[in-house]
């Protein structure tokens, strides 16, 4: 089913509706609860009518800079409503991929669709759905923060009130009337986030949004991302810092040297790599009996002891049995810690030379 953007006649919020062309749909605005009937527009050029649950679809993307292959045959898709983490070390090709999705750089080959609309042939239509935060956030230094945002708002058909509201929300309150040239890097970054979410686009593309931010800024951006997800926004976010993405992503893609090496949920990836959780158990008094009891269990890969502490790497399903074995062998358990395989581990595995 094709989707289309409509504006609430009362509060001007952008709402995504989906339905067959010509179909009339009853809708309640999520912002102001205004009820209304919208007609799904008849065919729109460039739309593949089959599009349904895919927000961003990249097929066979290739981009070469003077014989240097920056992105080599990358394919992935981002589902509507999910947070997709795009991970890779510096120079892996993340920004090049993102710029190709937006047709800022012209791909050598490959097809890219946004909500089923081909970006290369119908860019104007496709980009209506996108809010973008570039890796290098930049504004017009002679203009104030509010003048800058208002300029983008005019093009996005958003209101000046929303600009004022967003400046407030991103913690820039009093700085709205200040020239952006006088902003610190962190402030520019926050304003960049405001620009991306201006007009409540259904798809957000964020290229390393926390780059150059202080810890409070990082938290602010993460909260904003989660808040947008709650509203049903699809979020594509790139990063080379794993910890900031791990907790919020539904799925991740890992790119290395221009090649997409994995695409899955964090859990799924660690399963595929056979990464196992680590359990750290502290007991009253260590004994060989306890150690052997654990070592002989099936599904236990390794056991290390440090004083009264056991470090066990085993199948996820064996965790309970390990604890039971320790207990049965006479170990009086003081403390148990379990660490799931992290994205860091996944990442290291996939990007090691």
């Amino acid at each position, binding site marked *: 089913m094709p989707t289309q953007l409509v504006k609430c006649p009362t509060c001007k919020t952008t709402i995504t509706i989906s339905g067959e062309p010509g179909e009339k749909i009853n809708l309640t605005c999520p912002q102001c609860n205004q009820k209304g009937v919208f007609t799904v527009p008849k065919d729109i050029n460039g739309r593949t009518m089959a599009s349904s649950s895919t927000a961003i679809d990249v097929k066979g993307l290739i981009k070469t800079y003077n014989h240097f292959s920056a992105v080599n045959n990358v394919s992935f898709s981002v589902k509507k409503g999910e947070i997709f983490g795009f991970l890779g070390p510096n120079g892996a090709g993340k920004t090049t991929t993102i*710029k190709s999705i937006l047709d*800022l*750089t*012209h791909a050598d080959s490959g097809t890219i669709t946004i909500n089923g609309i081909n970006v290369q042939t119908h860019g104007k239509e496709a980009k209506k759905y996108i809010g*973008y935060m*570039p890796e290098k956030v*930049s504004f017009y230094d*002679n203009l104030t923060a509010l003048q800058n945002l208002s300029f983008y708002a005019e093009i996005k058909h958003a209101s000046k009130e929303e600009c004022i509201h967003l400046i407030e929300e991103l913690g820039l309150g009093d700085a709205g009337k200040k020239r952006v040239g006088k902003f610190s890097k962190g402030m520019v970054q926050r304003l960049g986030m405001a620009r991306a979410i201006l007009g409540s686009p259904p798809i957000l593309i964020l290229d390393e949004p926390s780059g150059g931010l202080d810890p409070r800024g990082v938290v602010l951006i993460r909260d904003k991302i989660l808040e947008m997800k709650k509203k049903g926004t699809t979020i594509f976010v790139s990063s080379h810092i794993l910890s900031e993405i791990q907790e919020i992503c539904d799925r991740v893609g890992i790119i290395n040297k221009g090649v997409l090496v994995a695409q899955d949920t964090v859990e799924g990836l660690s399963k595929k790599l056979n990464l196992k959780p680590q359990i750290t158990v502290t007991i009253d008094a260590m004994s060989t009996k306890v150690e052997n009891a654990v070592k002989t269990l099936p599904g236990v890969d390794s056991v290390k002891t440090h004083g009264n502490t056991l470090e066990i790497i085993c199948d996820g399903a064996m965790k309970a049995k390990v604890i039971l074995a320790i207990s049965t062998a006479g170990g009086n358990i003081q403390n148990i810690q379990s660490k799931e395989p992290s994205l860091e581990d996944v990442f290291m595995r996939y990007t090691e030379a």
Partner: protein
Amino acid sequence: MQTNVILSIAKKEIMDNIRNKWIILVSVMFALLTLVVSYFGSLGSSGWQNLGNTISGMTQLGAYLISIVAFMLGYATIIGEIERGSMSALLSLSATRFEITVGKFLGLGAVLCLTILAGYGVAGLVIALNVANVNYLEYLAFIGITMIFGLVFLSVALFFSTVFSKRSTALGGAIFLWFLFTIILPIVFVGLLATTIDFTEITMQTTLVVPDWYHFLNLFNPISVYTALITITIGAVQSSTGAGLIPNPSWYSSGLLLGVFLVWIIVFFALAVWRFQRKDI
């Protein structure tokens, strides 16, 4: 094509440049310079000259300065935004490269025309208050032609801002181009002319007959076209002392020369769009 996108971009360019203040300085400088030329301009006589003399005194100098101002406004307008990173954000909106180019041309063109209007306008008014028999219409025509001339250079500058991949290279290119039009081309054309005409035989009394190809070549230099257009169109200039050594051929007409300007504007604008479309941001 969306007019609201184009107008927003044009408006932003105007705000951005006016806030920059240098353009206001340029306007003031223009007015002062015109007044100085008008008051002290011609040897032998002191005091205010009529508008015709003022115009012919200002034509060459004005052309040099306006071409610089147009280049300054335009040479980095696209590459500058790409380099700084603001172009990515602009293009991620549903603004096409064509719309952005049109918006920039309109906005920068408005700034340039306002500068010319303010500079020459204020000077014209001051002069008009001090001399008799003012032909306002001709002075307005002078201002209008000057604006179109400025737009020619703006269009060339816009193209330059899409050619290079660095702002600094674009600056170098613009400076070279300025010398090309103001010094190199005139010297080359006159040099070519010298191979066919014996200048030593010319006295003050003989009328110089210059071959048509020379006049044709001059159509490729907007500064020559501008001087010719002013001389042909503004009656006051024809009768003033400032008319050039080499007379304009009979086949030069205001219409033809304006047409040449229009071709310059359109060709370089189209080239700018074409280059920009292909550029990786």
